[in-house]
């Protein structure tokens, strides 16, 4: 537990895994989704992207994942061995995005299967990953037999099975109820502390970002830009008490104010 108590200074002192420099994205429709976005994501950091709908949060994740190309600027992988995008990126979408025809086991196994690894060779790994998200009893179930929260856990397990260096999460729990969401937030934090992947977590919830992250990047829309960069100093592990602490409240206030200012600036234009 001692090693889990990481002050934010350490987070800022980390070498960056990936750096965005002057990144812009304009779609063929003419929509300028991002303009001049620059930030570093430290290796092992938990960074949240917080902003209103349509400000380009998903677009940033897609660019980092290599699912789309920036139309300006570049993305540098300074923290990987060969300077290239790592092959083991986990992506959790807003929806569970499971294959309805496949069991929970096969859904989680998918990334390994796409790499050509056989079923029996990975059985233990898949089961171990399911255990980590608390779903080992449901390996043989089909997605339609699961609750919304359980489906999100499967989606998380599928992202974790590749032992990702980088985990990209796009409002993963936004569609869930408050109780399930905070439960999953806690589980995610526990996993992150144990395994130390780098996380970029998209959310539109001030509270969620304040609870989870070491650092909050507040975004403003049209075109999407970074409006504020807020460090969250509170140490981990963060338990339920943290959610009522003055430090947490201060972060929430700061993030809300930054969000309001960003929106006001937007409205004034």
């Amino acid at each position, binding site marked *: 537990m001692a090693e889990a108590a990481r002050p934010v200074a350490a987070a800022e002192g980390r070498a960056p895994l990936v750096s965005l420099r002057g990144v812009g994205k304009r779609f063929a429709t003419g929509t300028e989704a991002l303009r001049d976005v620059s930030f570093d994501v430290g290796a092992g950091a938990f960074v949240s992207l917080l902003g209103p709908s349509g400000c380009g949060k998903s677009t940033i994740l897609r660019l980092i994942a290599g699912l789309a190309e920036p139309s300006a600027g570049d993305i540098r992988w300074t923290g990987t061995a060969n300077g290239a995008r790592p092959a083991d990126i986990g992506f959790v979408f807003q929806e569970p995005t499971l294959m309805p*025809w*496949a069991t929970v086991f096969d859904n989680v196994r998918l990334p390994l299967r*796409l790499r050509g690894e056989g079923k029996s060779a990975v059985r233990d790994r898949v089961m171990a990953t399911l255990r980590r998200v608390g779903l080992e009893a449901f390996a043989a179930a089909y997605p339609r037999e699961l609750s919304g929260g359980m489906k999100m856990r499967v989606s998380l397990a599928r992202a974790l099975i*590749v032992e990702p260096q980088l985990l990209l999460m796009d409002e993963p729990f936004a569609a869930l109820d408050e109780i399930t969401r905070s439960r999953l937030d806690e589980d995610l934090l526990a996993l992150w502390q144990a395994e130390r992947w780098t996380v970029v977590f998209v959310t539109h919830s001030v509270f969620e970002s304040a609870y989870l992250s070491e650092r909050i990047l507040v975004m403003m829309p049209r075109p999407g830009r970074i409006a504020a960069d807020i460090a969250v100093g509170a140490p981990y592990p963060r338990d339920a008490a943290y959610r009522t602490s003055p430090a947490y409240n201060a972060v929430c206030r700061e993030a809300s104010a930054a969000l309001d200012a960003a929106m006001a600036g937007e409205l004034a234009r």
Partner: protein
Amino acid sequence: MSERRDEEATRTRRRWFLAILVPVATLVVLVGGWQLYVSLSGVAFYILPSPGRVFETLIADWGILGPALVATLTLTFEALALAVVGGVLLAVLMAQSRWAELALYPYAVILQVTPVVAIAPLLLVWVPSTQAALLILAWIVAFFPILTNTAQGLKSVDHGLLALFDLYGAGRWRTLIHLRIPNALPYFMTGLKIGGGLALIGAVVAELAAGSSGRGSGLAFRLIEANFRSNAPRAFAALVLLSLTGIAIFFATSLISWLVLRRWHESAALRER
């Protein structure tokens, strides 16, 4: 827990029972009404034979109708099998290559919208073997729904899943095998159900169009032949066999669909209450 289960089983059994009992009761009422009408009105048997007489003819003329049934069934299933192979292969080709889609799809549509009865005389002249001509005609009718439904299923893949396959570097082939094809299964099954019924219709239309120029062995041919000879009981018997064939195809394709999809697809799964 087990009480629940029993209750569930009872309800399922009752549902099945009703699903069979009600249509059968309808059939009994209709056939009974038919028999009653024929007996009371005294209508001539060569205009409207009674159900009893049709049944007798079915037995008596089995020597002619049996082989005719086999011939029509053979034609139907050969056409359906070729439609499945052709429809699926073409759908995969079109899903994999935009060029193939641009080049082929319009002609698939033209083939479909041109009434098969109008093509039949030409094909019968061009194709040396009548049997082959019949097969082509039935195939034309059956393959289109299989093609369009399968193509639709191959294309309407969840974008998130596509992104995921991209992320893990799946490539075209693995995306086809692990994503597009399973996704297309329910669509294909719909196409199969429609195509199965249409294969029979195609076979009948082809036989009718071929008329006397064929070997004249199919059920549809026997039906018009009986009509020409004012042998209404045999025409009805042939009609009954055609209907039964259609019903059997419908049930067979529905069963296949249910067996394949029941574990995961909403259409096949029983709704929990």
